[in-house]
């Protein structure tokens, strides 16, 4: 039951964040002082004896977008819960700053009694920001996800894709150095999903956070990531790793590039093997 986490980033990092609110960090600045998130020999066995994860080790730096693909129930989501501290791992160590972690859930998890604006301000409220700051941060984030004009709408009048955008905006207000995505776009239609992928990519290109993304979709994984890990069926282990060579910013047309298809094919073959 050894779990520890560092609660402060190296000073250089936090300063960079403060200066570059919603702006692209300048190229000269070296963000890779330390891995923002690292897993070492993580295992997880639930009290009922189910072994969900075995010896998972990898790290995610600032400016890296890492995706884990794997069959259903392989423990991908469990890994995110461990990273965020919602679950305690039974073996290994996690290193991450949990003070302002960004976690985008499978569902949008908006509070139905709050308007879009109020929902986006929620995390700043929980962290005790003063009202003027949280208003400004929320307004910026809403603008960034393209929901200006919808500030006073309640979630019940939003489509699934819009709810997901609100959820993204809510997470953005904290300017989290680490962004965890738990299959966030699994419930929306293909077209919306493609658009949300492009928007996620834009956010990543601007914010240069350390992204850890969970998905079933190979094309989503390849399109977004700097690196894709393939996870085996339970107990989840990393069985293959692919560095994705495409430069950012990436264009939607990348999905039709022959090289894109070739890499996706390799990931698919490896995923096929991971099922057994």
């Amino acid at each position: 039951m050894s779990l520890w986490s560092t609660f402060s980033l190296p000073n250089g990092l936090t300063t960079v964040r403060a200066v570059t609110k919603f702006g692209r960090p300048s190229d000269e600045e070296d963000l890779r002082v330390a891995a923002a998130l690292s897993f070492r020999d993580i295992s997880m066995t639930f009290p009922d004896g189910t072994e969900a994860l075995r010896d998972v080790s990898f790290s995610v730096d600032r400016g890296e977008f890492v995706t884990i693909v794997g069959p259903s129930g392989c423990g991908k989501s469990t890994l995110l819960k461990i990273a965020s501290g919602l679950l305690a791992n039974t073996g290994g160590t996690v290193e991450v700053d949990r003070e302002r972690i960004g976690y985008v859930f499978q569902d949008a998890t908006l509070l139905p009694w709050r308007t879009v604006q109020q929902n986006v301000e929620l995390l700043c409220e929980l962290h005790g920001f003063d009202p003027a700051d949280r208003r400004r941060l929320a307004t910026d984030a809403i603008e960034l996800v393209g929901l200006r004009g919808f500030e006073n709408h309640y979630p019940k009048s939003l489509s699934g894709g819009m709810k997901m955008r609100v959820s993204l905006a809510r997470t953005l207000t904290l300017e989290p150095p680490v962004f965890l995505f738990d299959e966030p776009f699994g419930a929306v239609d293909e077209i919306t999903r493609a658009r949300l992928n492009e928007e996620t990519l834009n956010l990543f290109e601007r914010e240069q956070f350390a992204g850890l993304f969970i998905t079933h979709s190979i094309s989503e994984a390849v399109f977004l990531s700097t690196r894709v890990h393939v996870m085996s069926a339970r107990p989840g282990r990393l069985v293959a790793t692919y560095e994705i060579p495409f430069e950012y910013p990436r264009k939607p047309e990348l999905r039709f590039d022959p090289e894109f298809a070739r890499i996706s094919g390799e990931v698919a073959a490896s995923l096929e093997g991971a099922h057994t």
Partner: protein
Amino acid sequence: MSMPDTSSHDSQVPDMTEPLAAADKLRKQSVQRGVAATVVPPIFFGVLLVGVWYLVSYGILEERQRFLLEPPHAVLTEGFLNGANLAEILGGLWSSTKVALIGLSVSIVLGMSLAVAMSQTKLIERAVFPYAVTLQAIPILAIVPLIQFWFGTGQFSRVIVCVIISLFPIIVNTLFGLQSAERGHHDLFTLHHASRWTRLTKLTFPAATPAIFAGLRISAGLSVIGAIVGDFFFGRGEVGIGQLLQKYANRLLGEQLLAAIVMSSALGVGVFLFFGWLQNRAIGKWYDGGGGAPT
């Protein structure tokens, strides 16, 4: 001309404003149609009932039996238009309304406090819940003589009857509501280190409001019943609507009896509607009443 116009509109960010406006318009139309559809059938049925009433009064009952069911216009003139009779009924109704309101207020404060305590500590829930259920299971008529025995027949005793009868739905609905917040929402609050108090005020309590209002509507109706039952059985002290009902029945004053019944029903319906209105004001703009969300 309109084609290029809409396409240029579409190329802007949200493709959602127009469907929303269209949905608004549709909703307005269906509301108008809905009002007609909800108002006409009950009026029609009401006229039918009055017709049957007349039929029984004049067609079935002979003249010497007619006191059993006086015709509607006699109830109207004797019960509602006769100043002295109306004043008596309204006086009794007011007395019972006060009892019901005090009883309901006590139930709300007590029931919600208990439910919050139970939601915060499993031990308290386990300890208290069986007794809350038992309280609900006690037939109110069985306990009224005991209350009279202990506390007499004053307002205090009547309020107790009201509380006993209206407390349970508040406890159960509030507790159910407080436990209804979604797992994902709890995770979100856990992730951002929310305190117990923050979680209660920003998550579980707001999530509970629809259930709380459902409980309030039930309890409001029950508290009216409690006020009348208490007054009816105590039979003395300040005269409420329950004592009047008893008196009218004993003296074969059919018109006043029916008028008093109509008035007390109106009180019950009134509080039910009031809480429905309050619910709509308080949470109507975000809560979709359990029906499908207009997406």
